[in-house]
């Protein structure tokens, strides 16, 4: 039988390569992660003074304005910023539901005293639904509302935003701020 021998070889090779790619490889990477990049490997977690994990630097939270800077709308299933099930809205550009949802977000921002033109990221849902960032524009647009809600000086809040700017690793990325980090700085934490 011509198939018997190749089948035997195929089985043996599969077992070997299974061990290499499915056991040795992931364990090796996990080991390196724990030794060299322990914080990153476990999710870049943020703790408060008591050591309680409050969030992750990489996962957005569902902040409400205007006392805090708010992040982007989130279309994750169940509830916004559902870190257990990521995803975008998948609404097509011509879908009337998209225009309606953006309109609602705009009205809500308007009620908080934030006026247009509205920064695109502040009124649209991200791909992951967990985007931890907003553009510098979107943060600056919220400055007057946040300053008023907190009874702070506008310039002071603005300076705080500018001190939180990141994202200049490459010339073609926009400047952005991490919303959790910015809000903690606002409270004098972290």
């Amino acid at each position, binding site marked *: 039988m011509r198939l018997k021998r190749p089948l035997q070889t*195929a*089985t*043996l*090779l*599969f077992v*070997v*390569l299974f061990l*290499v*790619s499915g056991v040795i*490889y992931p364990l090796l*990477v*996990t080991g*390196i*992660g724990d030794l060299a*990049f322990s914080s*990153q*490997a*476990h999710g870049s977690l943020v703790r408060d003074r008591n050591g*309680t994990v*409050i*969030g*992750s630097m990489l996962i*957005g*939270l*569902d*902040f409400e304005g205007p006392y*805090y800077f708010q992040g982007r709308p989130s279309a994750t299933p169940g509830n916004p*910023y559902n870190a*257990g099930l*990521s*995803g*975008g*809205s*998948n*609404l*097509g*550009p*011509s879908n*009337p539901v998209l*225009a309606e949802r*953006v*309109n609602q977000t705009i009205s809500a921002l308007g009620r908080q005293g934030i006026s*247009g*033109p*509205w920064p695109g990221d502040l009124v*649209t849902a*991200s*791909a*992951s639904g*967990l*985007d931890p960032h907003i*553009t*510098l524009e979107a943060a600056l647009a919220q400055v007057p509302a946040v300053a008023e809600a907190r009874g702070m000086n506008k310039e002071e809040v603005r300076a705080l935003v500018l001190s939180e700017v990141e994202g200049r690793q490459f*010339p*073609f*990325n926009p400047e*952005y701020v991490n919303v959790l980090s910015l*809000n*903690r700085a606002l*409270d004098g934490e972290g």
Partner: protein
Amino acid sequence: MPVSDPISDLVGLAAFIIIITGAAFLAGRYVAAVFGGNIHLPFLVRMENSLYRFLGTSPENEETWKGYARDMLLFNAIGFCVLFFILLAQGFLPANPQHFPGFSAVHALNIAISFVTNTNWQVYSGEAAASYLTQVAGLTVQNFLSAATGLCIAIALMRGLTRELTGTVGNFWVDMTRAILYILFPLAVIASVVLLSQGVIQNFDPSFTMAGYGGAAPQTIATGPVSSQEAIKLLGTNGGGFFNANSAHPFENPTPFSNIFEVFLILLIPAALPFTFGRMSGNMRQGWAIFAAMLILFVAAFGVLYAAELGGNPVLTSLDVPGISMEGKEVRFGLTGTVLFSTSTTAVACGAVNAMFDSFTPIGGLVPMFLILLGEVVYGGIGSGFATMIAFIVIAVFIAGLMIGRTPEYLSKKIGIFEMKMALIVILVPGILVLVFTGIALVTKGGTAGIFNPGPHGLSEIVYAFASMANNNGSAFAGLNAAATFYSLSGVIIMAIGRFIPAVAILALAGSVAEKKAVPSGQGTLPTATITFVLWLIAVILIIGALTFFPLFAMGPLAEQLALAGGF
């Protein structure tokens, strides 16, 4: 600060292309050395040889194309069975802290075929359905093995084209071993560590609750061994994400740098193969010619997608939201990072995404669809893209030969009827699958029920789904309900046929040209390493792609674009 600045974006793109070309050139030489058996590290060679003794084979033991194809199919069949079993039995297996139940038989069948065929079309949401064991020992293993299979087929084809008067194209077991041991494994380890440094997670912790801050609600967060999966999913052009949001999820792709690095990983091996071919044929110009054709198509696709997205969505602009549409995009990547990733993942048969194509502008969504439907010849899936490109070359040489009265030949090998038949199978099978199944979907309840967005956009979702599965890409207009039985079962047939029929045809082509005698080039030879031929090749690819699919493009994305621009 605007989200995009075309001039600096252009400079960034140019820099990236120079880097990837240089890296691909070096990697191409390395791949040629690996499969030529010219890596002489004593420790590894000893290990390799004892493995071959254990398997009962040796590098000298080469096979005909039929033997090579048989071994390839058997090996993949075993991989399919093991993965199918893991998916079904997941609920009873260890490393399942969330206690996910096993997959249904229909979904297990779909996922197993999907990962064995290097498609990584996903009918499930990774973080909400797949255990760590499934991710690591099931899916990651097939990410390696399906990528290595594609690489082996491309190498066998290169051998066939560059040998003469022989019946053999190589030893599948040896090629498979070398692909993993010398290429995919070391590269994946290095890539994982780089990704870890950027914040990609890698742990076996169960999901846990974070307390929240300042009125923001607490969150239950999914975690797991992501970095190891991420690295090989990109390097092996697989594309199946650990998380539902794929490479848009901050734990898969946390920074602007990780994003560009991931694009680099997607392109590296596919872009290296033309140089491997140049090396193996002893004629680097042939390799550069293929690379040039790919690069021109890549830059053109990038340009159209970039321009389309830069124009924004008129619906949003009219609501006083200027600039590009950020729906389905992440802030940290910027427009260039998004467009570069999207172009690369569909030029190559990867299918990972860092933005949601369903929410792109109509023309922006057309570009990835078009790249897939061209057969993913722009660099292409690891191995399969190169092989499809050779099929296009065979056809280009044949048509040119007919037009100007020269003998159709490539690399001194005469192209005969058999080679033409095989090349046509490689090119037409995926296209026929797309057209037939789109037709079926449009006239059946099961097909139309899966549509998410109304109007012409719904047609785009269906066409994209079948294009993605037939060409083993795996990305999606993700609004479509891929988990529905109609799409799960039709997907099984499409992915299996779309992968293995062309693969066997490529090996047959390789075997057939390997047997031929090389004829010295003379007056009647059409040179294939010239600018004229590169442009001719591009024209042939575009004509075949456009003729096959233009009606679908017209009724889907083009109709939607016209309606949007007209304010309907």
